[in-house]
């Protein structure tokens, strides 16, 4: 396959970027989107040009590092999949593909397609943990957890923190991310003692980092590679209300 790419080029955080057009030649349909970019980058390097910087790590949809908006959709629009799991067979030979970084004030572009997602780390550091005394590992079933709660906590914990929710949201809101992180701890017995302080701290940090608010449009849920449900946002709204009203 041969494709035309319109890719975002930006030297560093302080320069304004622009779209550049380049050709992707001899692409196999079985390559992933990132492997296609690797081929493009090798061609560029061979011809003495600067390759495009993009983030990736696991390349199997579990780390949340890859972060590309492909033809206007974060991760490219394959349901429940990240950009690294998207294969070139979903594209047509000769097609033009637009590739952009996540766009949000809180996710500044560092270079080309790489954005700084430290804002998420700050949110986690503000309260996304449980304080436990370390020591010997507790017995496996010493603390019973109901099946429904366990399943829901697991669904929320599937969040890989990629930031596609922010990228897709018309308000660049991080609510789905924060909701998932609040829920997977808040649903489990270990997370109860800090439940309400946690949600207040994390939401306030989210505001401070400059993310937008939620309009419940559902775009985040639609692009989430882990298909995290909007229901967790409702749960977050409820917990935050309780947290703020608690004496």
């Amino acid at each position: 396959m041969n494709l035309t790419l319109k890719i975002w080029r930006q030297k560093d955080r302080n320069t304004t970027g622009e779209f550049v057009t380049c050709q992707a030649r001899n692409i196999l349909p079985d390559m992933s989107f990132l492997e296609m970019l690797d081929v493009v980058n090798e061609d560029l390097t061979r011809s003495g040009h600067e390759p495009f910087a993009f983030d990736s790590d696991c390349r199997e949809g579990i780390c949340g590092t890859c972060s590309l908006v492909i033809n206007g959709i974060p991760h490219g629009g394959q349901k429940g999949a990240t950009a690294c799991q998207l294969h070139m067979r979903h594209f047509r030979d000769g097609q033009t593909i637009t590739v952009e970084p996540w766009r949000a004030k809180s996710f500044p572009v560092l270079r080309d397609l790489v954005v700084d997602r430290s804002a998420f780390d700050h949110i986690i550091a503000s309260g996304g943990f449980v304080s436990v005394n370390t020591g010997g590992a507790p017995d496996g079933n010493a603390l019973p957890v109901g099946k429904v709660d366990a399943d829901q906590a697991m669904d929320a914990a599937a969040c890989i923190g990629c930031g596609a929710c922010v990228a897709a949201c018309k308000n660049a809101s991080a609510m789905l991310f924060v909701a998932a992180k609040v829920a997977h701890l808040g649903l489990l017995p270990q997370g109860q003692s800090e439940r309400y302080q946690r949600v207040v701290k994390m939401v306030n940090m989210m505001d401070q980092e400059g993310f937008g608010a939620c309009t419940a449009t559902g775009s985040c849920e639609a692009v989430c590679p882990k298909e995290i449900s909007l229901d967790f946002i409702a749960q977050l709204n409820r917990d935050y209300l309780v947290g703020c009203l608690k004496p």
Partner: protein
Amino acid sequence: MNPLAFLFRTSLGKKYLMALTGFGLFAFVVVHMVGNLQFFLGREAINRYAYFLHSVPELLWGARIGLLVMVGLHVWTAIQLSAENRAARPIGYKRKKALGSSYASRTMLMSGLIIGCFVIYHLLHFTVQVPEVNFTGKDFHDLVDAEKHHDVYQMMVTGFLQPWVTLFYIVGVGLLCLHLSHGVSSLFQSLGLRTGKYTPLLKSFGFWMSWVLVIGYWSIPISVVLGLKK
């Protein structure tokens, strides 16, 4: 945190305010429609209803001030949040596909602002009855029925015989229901009540309520335009 500070300062607090005032306004809009539909019971019924509403000025003004406060808070939070939301993405996308979101949900601010203009016009037209805005050359204050009460029935019929005025009502109410087709279920989401099995229930409640409202409100000007009510 001080509960009031959190309502007015944090993004979620503003969303609660928006949802609570949105719910209050939604409830008003439903009651207002049911009241208006007495138009179809005839001149006497709707005029008596209007007379009843005006009979206790303390209650009338209580309700009006309550509504004004709700509109004020709703619009204030809407504008604040929209400004913050816009600031959260200074550089937009070259290509953007809106996945999983409804048209109504993406245009809440626009539909809201046009509804705001419509509400102001509506108040000048039928509440304050400024003669200059009804474009009929008549003063609605002069319309009285057999019992010497204000003839609301005649005012509606006369008012809706102006095509441009009627068109604005059709558009205004249509946008209100578009706003509510997302707003009603979203408000439960904002208040943390839309989870699990309630999600589909609340979504269809919002959907059907906006259809009921649009048909209920539209039926009056349309029946006048079609000459069914004279």
